[in-house]
C-alpha cells in the first residue's frame, strides 16, 4: 500500500522531529515527565508513520526485521545487566547514585533547575528500556506490513 504524495511529503518532513522528540524524552527521563517506555513509544510512532506512508518494498532495505529484533534483545539485556551490577548490595540497587562517577552528581534538595549528570543508573535504564520498546513495537509494525503485502 502506498499513500498519496501529500502524505509521503508530510511523513518525510515530520519523521526527524518525532525521532528527536522521542530521544529527548528518553534522555531527560530522570528530569521531566516521561521515560524509557514513553520515549520508545514515540519513536515507534515515527516508524509507524513511515511504514504507513510507504510501500514495504521501499522501506525494507533500511528497516530490517533482524536489526529491530536485535535492538530489542540488546535493550532487555542491558537492562538486566545494569540491574545485576548492583549485586554488591541487592538486585536493582542504584550503585551509581551520589558516587561522583558517570551520572553520579548529587542533587540539591527541593526545587532545582535539573542537572543532566545525575540519576545514577536511571538514565542507563531509561535508555535500555527505550531501545527495547522501540525495537519491540517497531518489529510488530514491520511484521504486520510484510504480511499484509502478501495478502494483496
Amino acid at each position, binding site marked *: 500500500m502506498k499513500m498519496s504524495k501529500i502524505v509521503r511529503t508530510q511523513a518525510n518532513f515530520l519523521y526527524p522531529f518525532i525521532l528527536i522528540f522521542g530521544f529527548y524524552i528518553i534522555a531527560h527521563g530522570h528530569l521531566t515527565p516521561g521515560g524509557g517506555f514513553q520515549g520508545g513509544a514515540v519513536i515507534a510512532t515515527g516508524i509507524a508513520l513511515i511504514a504507513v506512508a510507504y510501500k514495504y518494498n521501499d522501506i525494507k532495505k533500511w528497516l530490517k526485521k533482524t536489526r529491530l529484533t536485535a535492538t530489542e534483545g540488546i535493550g532487555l539485556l542491558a537492562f538486566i545487566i545494569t540491574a545485576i551490577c548492583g549485586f554488591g548490595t541487592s538486585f536493582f540497587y542504584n550503585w551509581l547514585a551520589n558516587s561522583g562517577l558517570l551520572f553520579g552528581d548529587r*542533587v540539591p534538595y527541593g526545587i532545582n533547575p535539573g542537572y543532566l549528570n*545525575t540519576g545514577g543508573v536511571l538514565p542507563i535504564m531509561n535508555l535500555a*528500556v527505550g531501545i527495547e520498546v522501540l525495537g519491540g513495537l517497531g518489529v510488530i509494525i514491520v511484521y504486520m506490513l510484510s504480511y499484509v503485502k502478501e495478502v494483496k
Partner: protein
Amino acid sequence: MRNALVAISLLIVFASLVYIAVNPGDFGGQTGEHLVFGEPKHTDMDDYFIHHGQNQSAANNIVTSIVFDYRGYDTLGEASVLFAAVLGAGLVLRALRRDKK
C-alpha cells in the same frame, strides 16, 4: 427490544459511575475521610518518597525513580511481558506465511 436492553444497562452503569465519582464514601478503612474528584489521597508513603527520593536515587523525577529504582522488579516484568508479546506476534505471523505457501 435488544437495543433498549443495552441502552438501559449502559445507563445503569453510567449512573453508578457518576454516583461513585460524586460521592466516593470512605476509602482505605478510615471513616469520615471523603475523596474529592481531582484531589488525590495523601498518605505516609507519598511523604517518604517525596522527602527521600532526591537524596537516595539522585533524580528530580520521583515517578521515574520509583519505576526504575524502588520498584525495579515491576519494570523488569513489564519489559519481559513486552518481549514475550513481540515473540508471540512474530511466531504467529511467520506460521501464517508458511501456511500460505
